[in-house]
Every structure is written in structure tokens, then in C-alpha cells.
């Protein structure tokens, strides 16, 4: 809102936690106790949420459209999975290893991505995604190819908590990782660096004019985003103790994009809300709609979001919230 800028003194966004944010996180904790039968699904929602948050960093903040974000998710997943298969099943270091390799791949590819305009970026990310998928597919002697990577054996978390089939450790572990990363990223996007990303999204040509290095910032956020996606992938590999080829697939890239748009891009929470809504809906509807037709409704939903409900769930909710609070005062 332009008049806000004019009337308020220029400062960084305030960093206090909104009550709704605290409610949200407490809700994720209570869900653990309320739905003990759904902890496996819950941990996958958290992981997908983290993946969507990583996409939000480049798409929602810096405005880089990616159609191949699963590349980094998959690299992280295979790194953690392969480490465990070849005898190092320690979860925390595996997680960081996943993030590190994804960050390296992300840094390397970022130069290819950021140099072009929208369309070139789109195709470059698409190409990188397909390339890695095909590489993993053909390198079956390492990755297991279409059969997936099995034999992932995780050690106990901190030497204490076993990864059980009920998803107890998986849920709490995923939640802890998600929360810690979220706190860090929440700080990052509220920093001057984060604001410059929004500047890139809004008017990339003017960013060099205020003295901020455009390409450098884009490379930085792309690398961070890849690292977070890699961590999400590593989490999935560790908690499910399996890596399927689909971690690198185009469907996964498209799905995470849909989840983010459904939730609302450009505000970190969008990815999380989107993941909760999307995956819970998928779980409930899967009894009524077979997987082949689920895509039809997702497609319709996408078309509807673009044409009618621009901004996703969070924008809609914010509009309602603003109206309610304005009515009260």
C-alpha cells in the first residue's frame, strides 16, 4: 500500500510473534496428541510444508518462478538416503549433509537460472529437474532407479529415539526441524536482505540503482532455498527410510508449486497452510476419488485460483480478518 509507505517512518518489519502465529505452532504440537493415528501423515505434511516454504523463498519473495524445485528436494533425499545405506545412519548429520549437497547443486545451477528472463528461468529449472530425474533413473546402480532406494537404516535420534512405524519420532523430529528452520527464515525475510528480495520481485531493474547487487542476491536466495529444500528431502528420506525416484519428478515440483499457491505465496506461512489443507484434503478424498482423477480437481482448483481467488487461502483469510478487525474498531 503506497500511502502506508508515505505516512509511516521507514523501518524494518517488526519481529514480534503475532498471537495467531503462536496458536498455529501450538496447534501443530497439539495435533501430535489429538490424532495419534495420523502421525505419519502429519510428518509428511510438515516435510511438504518445509519444501513449500523453501519454494516460497525464491518464488514468493524474489519472484523466481521454478518448475524444477524437486531437483533439490531429491538431491537432499538421495544424499541422506545413500549415507544411511552405506553405513552412516546418524540423522542430524545426515540432514546437514542433505542440505549441503543441495546447496552446492543449487549454487552451481543458480548461475544458469538467474541470468535469464522469466521464460528462460522457467525452462532452465524445468530442464535441470528433468536432467536430475533422468540421471537418477539411469544411475540405478547407485540410486536403485525406478525401484527406489531401499535399505535405508536410520540410527536412533540422539542415540535415544527410534524411528518407529507409528511416526512418533518422525513427527516430532520433523516438527522440530521445521520450527528451527522457520524461525531462522522468518528472521531472514524480515532482514534488509529479505526486503531487497521483495524489491527484486517488484522492480528488479531498480535494485541496482539503490546499490544492491541484483544477481548476487538472487544467487544467495536460490542457494538458501535449495539448501532448505534439500533438508526437507533428507527429512523425508530419513523418516520414511526409503527414497523413491518420484522425489525428483516433475509432479513433485508441480505439486509443491500448487501447494504454495493454494496457501498463498510470499508470506512463509502460505506453504505450511497449503500443505496442511492440500494433504489433509487428499487423504480424506482419496477414499472417494481415485488418484488418477484427483488431478482433475487439482487442475480445476488451479484454474479457479488463477482466474478467481487470486492470492490463495492466506490472502483470503487476511482480507476477512482485516474486515472483522476494522468493524470492531
Amino acid at each position, binding site marked *: 500500500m503506497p500511502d502506508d509507505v508515505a505516512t509511516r517512518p521507514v523501518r524494518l518489519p517488526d519481529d514480534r510473534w503475532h498471537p495467531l502465529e503462536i496458536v498455529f505452532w501450538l496447534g501443530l504440537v497439539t495435533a501430535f496428541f489429538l490424532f495419534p493415528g495420523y502421525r505419519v501423515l502429519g510428518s509428511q505434511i510438515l516435510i511438504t510444508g518445509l519444501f513449500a516454504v523453501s519454494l516460497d523463498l525464491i518464488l514468493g519473495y524474489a519472484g523466481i518462478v521454478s518448475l524444477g524445485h524437486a531437483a533439490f528436494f531429491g538431491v537432499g533425499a538421495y544424499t541422506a538416503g545413500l549415507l544411511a545405506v552405506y553405513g552412516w545412519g546418524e540423522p542430524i548429520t545426515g540432514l546437514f549433509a542433505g542440505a549441503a549437497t543441495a546447496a552446492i547443486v543449487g549454487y552451481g545451477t543458480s548461475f*544458469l537460472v538467474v541470468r535469464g528472463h522469466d521464460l528462460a528461468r522457467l525452462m532452465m529449472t524445468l*530442464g535441470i529437474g*528433468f536432467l536430475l530425474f533422468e*540421471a537418477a533413473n539411469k544411475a540405478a546402480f547407485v540410486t536403485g532407479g525406478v525401484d527406489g532406494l531401499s535399505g535405508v537404516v536410520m540410527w536412533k535420534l540422539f542415540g535415544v529415539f527410534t524411528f518407529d512405524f507409528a511416526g512418533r519420532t518422525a513427527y516430532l523430529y520433523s516438527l522440530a526441524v521445521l520450527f528451527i528452520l522457520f524461525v531462522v527464515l522468518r528472521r531472514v525475510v524480515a532482514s534488509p536482505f529479505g526486503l531487497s528480495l521483495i524489491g527484486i520481485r517488484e522492480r528488479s531493474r531498480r535494485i541496482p540503482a539503490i546499490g544492491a547487487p541484483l544477481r548476487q542476491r538472487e544467487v544467495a536466495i536460490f542457494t538458501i532455498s535449495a539448501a532448505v529444500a534439500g533438508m526437507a528431502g533428507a527429512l523425508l528420506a530419513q523418516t520414511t527410510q526409503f527414497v523413491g525416484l518420484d522425489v525428483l519428478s516433475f509432479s513433485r515440483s508441480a505439486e509443491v508449486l500448487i501447494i504454495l499457491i493454494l496457501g498463498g505465496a510470499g508470506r512463509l506461512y502460505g506453504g505450511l497452510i497449503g500443505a496442511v489443507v492440500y494433504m489433509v484434503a487428499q487423504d480424506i478424498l482419496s477414499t472417494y476419488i481415485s488418484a*488418477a482423477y484427483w488431478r*482433475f480437481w487439482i487442475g*480445476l482448483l488451479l*484454474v479457479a485460483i488463477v482466474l478467481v481467488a487470486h492470492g490463495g487461502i492466506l490472502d483470503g483469510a487476511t482480507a476477512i480478518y482485516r474486515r472483522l478487525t476494522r468493524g470492531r474498531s
Partner: protein
Amino acid sequence: MVAHLIGVLFDGISYGSLLFLIGVGLAVTLGLMNFVNLAHGAFAMLGGYSTVLVMSRYGVPFFLALPVAFVVSAAVGALLERTLYRRLYRASHLDQVLFSIGLTFMAISAATFVWGPTQQPVRVPSFLQGQVQIFGLDFGAYRLFLIGVVVVITLALGYLVERTRFGAQIRAAVDNQQVSAGLGINVDRIFCLTFALGSGLAGLGGGLGIEVLGLDPTFPLKYIVYFLLVAAVGGAGTISGPLATALILGVFDVAGKYYVPEIGAFVIYALMIVLLILFPSGLFGRRA
């Protein structure tokens, strides 16, 4: 050895000309409307299914089924352009991508619902089956036919774009929409007609390509990279750009699958990245 090389080259060229036929419509949408239409492959798939349907159910011969494929895809394209696509010409690329991914998903599900997930067979006329001997070398008859069709269509398109009034209007609209509209060109109508033409050609390509590309519900996703490459690297407003790109793609893809089958589709994705690095604004340059 040389015979092999010629065989691969020939297969690659016929494959590439098919990619051109399907992809040229996308190049026009991209250049003229600046619209990233990831659902373009769905129009090709629609053409393919129309061909199969009229042939198997109504016993229409192959050569009459192809024009049907063109007309059906063109009509659906025009309808969608009027009702949905035109609302998004000024939207961000992200919105266009989401919208067209949504359409693609719907098309895939609908095709699975109607025709099932299996490959559809097509029976081409008997004189197009088998091999033809030219200078002692064997060539696939159908592939020769394919190249012939695409040569004719390319010449017709070239004539349309370079020599006719309609073609001049398209070129003007690609160059500058506002000025064209100011000169009295009905840009809206041009958009609709070119979109329909592009979709129709994709449909025709889909019908012609069943023999080569196959036809199942995942078609639009499987080949979208190829079509996008033809459009984005080839550039818009010309016929030669997409044609050259499509031929390069076709030859490299066939050669890759023939000589280094271990790495499979890897070649084509690597080529895609190399082409994008070398020609960020299209093979023959493109307006900013």
C-alpha cells in the same frame, strides 16, 4: 556406418519435423500473446484422440481423420482462447503457468477417464507401412510421408506469414500490439485466429504423431519440454527459427537414443540447457 548415420539423420529429421508441426503453435502464442502455454501438448493429445476415435468408431480413413483432428483441436483452441486464455494475456508468467498446468492436469485426467491409461493404436494405410528403397538405402515410408506433409505445411505457413495480408497483420501484432491496434488491425481477432491455427496444427501433429510419439494420457507432460524448447529457443514471428530448433532437437534426440542408449533422455535435457545458455533470447534473437 555411413548408412547408419544417414538413417539416424533421416529419423531425426522426420522426428524433428513432427516436433516443429506441434511446437510452432506454441511459438506463436509465446511471441504474439507472450503467453507461456504449458497446456499446448494437450491440444496435440486432443488431435491424437480425435484421430483414433473417428477412425475406430466411424471407420473414417486415416487421411480424412487428420483434417478432423485439425478442426477439432482448432475449434477447442478457439473456444478456450475466447473464454479463458484471453483473460490472462496480461497476467504474470506465473499465473499463466499455473493456469496452463491446471488445464493440462484436467486434460490428462479426462483422457484417462474416457480412454483409459493405455497406449492407443492407430492403423496407418498399408502403403505407408514398411520401407522404401532410395539409392539402395531403406527409409521408413511413414517417416518419408511425415517429412513430406511437414514440408508442404511449412511452405504454406511461410506463404501465409510472409505473403498474405493476414500474415502481415500477425507480424505487425508480434512486433507491436498497440501500434497495430492503432493502425486498425483487429488484434483481438488475430489472437483468436492464430491461437486456433496453432492449436489445430498441434492437433494435426498429434494425429500424425501417434505412430512415432505414441498416444496415452501422459502425452502433454511427456513432450512439453520439447515443444517449449522449439518455441522458446526457436523464437517467434519466424518460421525458420522453430523449424531449425525442432530439427536440431530431433536429430540429437534420435542420435542420443541410438548411439548412447545407456544415458537415454539425458542428451536432450543437456542439449536444452546448452541451447538456453548459448541462445538466451532464441536461436535468431528475439525482441526483448
